[in-house]
């Protein structure tokens, strides 16, 4: 019990310390933002396979995972990323770090289990800027406009699970969507006439904030038809994501349909040391196409992931698995522009990673590295990124 309390405290602390969603991509300015997956480093190293894995996997995909936990566990995943973005012929680099996943889970009495997780859902951190010149009060000024949007939507998942047998478990729960979107608009004036004594102009600054909230449900199953093989499926959806303005009577509220999301995946042990994992996912974002008609629209998101884990037999209490993988995701939102909408972008990545388990499995560290690409010229944004994931798991044995 004490471990669980500590775990929840840690979850709250880490949630406050850093957002699960930090600036990742210029595509965060398209539609509702850049969708994020709440995966741990093991799943990230396997190309994003977040369910149907042997052993423990804490990704916020399948609520049934907690039924097979040997002990209460805390998992925190830390994810630094560096991105190079080519936008309209202009290259820029940016870096970020975030917690895409924080989970506390525990087996309960009997065959029950429970988990609380906090993870990424939509990233909305981006900025646009432009320059112009204006003649005001008899002077010419360089005008710089910046619209900076920060925030996003995170998912807080409460789930329970039940092991219906040695080989079958089910889980279900609710998803509470939370977050905010803050738009800061600033206009700066710089005198262009260096010979004259220009009147200084105060900048114009505006701020609008919305709070997000929404409720959804989730469910999942996990089945091991025979030793070394695990199959899993999970789904979530329902409800709407509501954006309510905070303290601004002129800002408009909005409501977006939350997508139905389906995940399926599994793993199979090929040899005593090698396991292959595959997963696919589909999210019905096209439900929001009508809501987003003026900003490029939306399509269904789908993706496939695959990877291989090599965990050689080791003596003693330690093991050091190695992983490689790849993934492809058709992203749901695209840039809209006055000149016409761009193509819907996709994200590709190759992944690799390793793990280390210590103290008879009481603690583990998993690392993942990803080299990925998003969009292309047709999408209006062409990005490449390096991403690392570090997950630390502690079991309360």
């Amino acid at each position: 019990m004490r471990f669980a309390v500590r775990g929840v405290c840690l979850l709250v602390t880490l949630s406050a310390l850093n957002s699960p969603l930090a600036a990742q991509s210029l595509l965060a300015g398209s539609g509702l933002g850049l969708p994020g997956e709440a995966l741990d480093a093991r799943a990230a190293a396997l190309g994003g396979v977040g369910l149907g894995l042997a052993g423990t996997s804490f990704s916020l995909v399948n609520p049934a995972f907690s039924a097979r936990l040997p002990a209460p566990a805390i998992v925190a995943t830390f994810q630094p990323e560096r991105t190079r973005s080519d936008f309209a012929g202009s290259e820029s680099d940016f870096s970020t770090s975030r917690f895409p996943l924080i989970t506390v889970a525990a087996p309960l009495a009997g065959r029950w289990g429970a988990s609380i997780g906090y993870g990424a859902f939509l990233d909305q951190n981006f900025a646009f800027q432009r320059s112009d010149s204006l003649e005001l009060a008899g002077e010419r000024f360089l005008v710089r406009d910046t619209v900076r949007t920060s925030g996003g939507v995170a998912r807080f998942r409460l789930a329970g699970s039940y092991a219906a047998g040695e080989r079958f478990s089910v889980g279900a729960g609710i998803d509470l969507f939370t977050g905010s979107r803050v738009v800061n608009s600033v206009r700066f004036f710089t005198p262009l006439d260096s010979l004259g004594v220009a009147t200084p102009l105060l900048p114009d600054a505006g701020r609008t904030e919305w709070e997000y909230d929404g409720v959804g449900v989730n469910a999942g199953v996990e089945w091991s038809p025979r030793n070394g093989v695990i199959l899993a499926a999970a789904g979530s959806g329902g409800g709407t994501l509501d954006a309510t303005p905070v303290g601004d009577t002129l800002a408009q509220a909005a409501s977006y349909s939350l997508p139905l999301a389906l995940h399926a995946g599994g793993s199979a042990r090929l040899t005593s040391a090698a396991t292959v994992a595959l997963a696919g996912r589909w999210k019905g974002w096209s439900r929001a196409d009508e809501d987003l008609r003026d900003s490029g629209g939306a399509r269904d998101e789908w993706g496939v992931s695959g990877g291989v884990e090599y965990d050689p037999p080791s003596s003693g209490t330690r093991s050091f698995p190695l992983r490689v993988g790849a993934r492809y995701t058709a992203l749901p939102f695209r840039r809209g522009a006055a000149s016409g909408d761009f193509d819907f972008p996709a994200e590709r990545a190759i992944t690799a990673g390793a793990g280390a388990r210590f103290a008879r499995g009481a603690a583990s560290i998993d690392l993942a590295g990803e080299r990925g690409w998003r969009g292309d010229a047709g999408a209006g944004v062409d990005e490449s990124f390096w991403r690392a994931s570090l997950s630390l798991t502690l079991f309360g044995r």
Partner: protein
Amino acid sequence: MRLRRPHFLFAALCAATVVTACSDDIPTASGEDAFPPQGRASTFDVLLSADSLTVEVGRFSDYTGPGDAAYLIVADDFGGVLDAHALVRFTDAPQSVQFSSGGTTFIDTAFVYAPGNLIARVDTSASAAAGTVLQLWAVGQEWSPANTTWERATDSTLWQEPGGTRAELLSEASATPSAGDSVLLPLDSAQVARIADPDFPGLLLTARGAPGRVRLTLAGLATALRPASRTDTTIAQTLMQGPRTFIFTPEPPRSVGAWEAGGIRSARTLFRLRIPDRISACGDPPPTSCGTVALEDVTVNSASLLFTPVPVPGGFGPLGTTTLALRSVFEPGLGRAAPLGPLVTDQRFVGAATVFAQGRLAPGDTVVAIPIGQYLQSVARADSTAVTLALLGEPEAASFGVAWFQPAARLRIVYTLPSRTPLP
């Protein structure tokens, strides 16, 4: 206490997170095409000149005099009218001379003065001194620095000669410095000794030649002392001025209708500013009828009250730069005694030495703009429709010349309409 290894690893993760979490860059796209059309701000400027914009409450003067000034004025027929003379006395003459010789320090109460120079530093930017000659006279009668005027030497005695009783002429020099900003008025050793005498009534500095008005300060009387015991030894000495003032005639003129600010009498004009509660939604002049927007809803990027200078007669106009200020006025009904409030200032534009809410009137300026942007915005948001302000020169008596302006001000406002980037 030693941390167990898993706990150590977790602590290391948290520490790494804290360090790296501070390095977020926000992805930023540049260009017109990327910018959301609804997020583009619109900035306009308007010039309001309605007669009802400003209404005079009163014009007041005689708050200060020459005793409040940090400078001296000498003038001769400037503007065909103005004469001004400076008076100064030296009271700190040394009673002994101290010198060293062969490692021994000597003090000699017997000494003689060497020839010297009275050093006048001329503020050329605030002077009209071409062809003007400064003359240094011995004053012919006692005078009181606190009470002397053009006619009076003290509060109970008149000058035998208006403008200060002159004894003999001691020195003269062109009022235009040949180099730097100093004018040297040479004095022989006997004159220096007389000036240093505590019973000497003082010096009178006048002007002659071409009409001029000279603003100056005295940097002292530079001389040297020769001890009686060592006549081959000369010790440099500067006698610093004691009481000093200046007298002038006539008094600064009062305007018939013009607004007054600054000058040796610290003139001020109180006026009521009626603040528009609504403003054009598309600038000035509006290309089409576009309606209005509440002033409190826009961002005032700058706002300035524009004052138009008019000539000041009698040689009392400002020379050089005059600093003008606007202050809020408490209880304007008290007239000349109405207490002044804080500067109508924008704190974000306070520089190292210059307060932004002040304006500067330089020679040849046709309009003086005094920024009041943030003040205007705050007043508009406080739902005030009119405020009373005082136009004055600051610091008080900082300039001799008084500024006059047309009895109405215009209001120029640069503002940005509120814009909101909507949700997608």
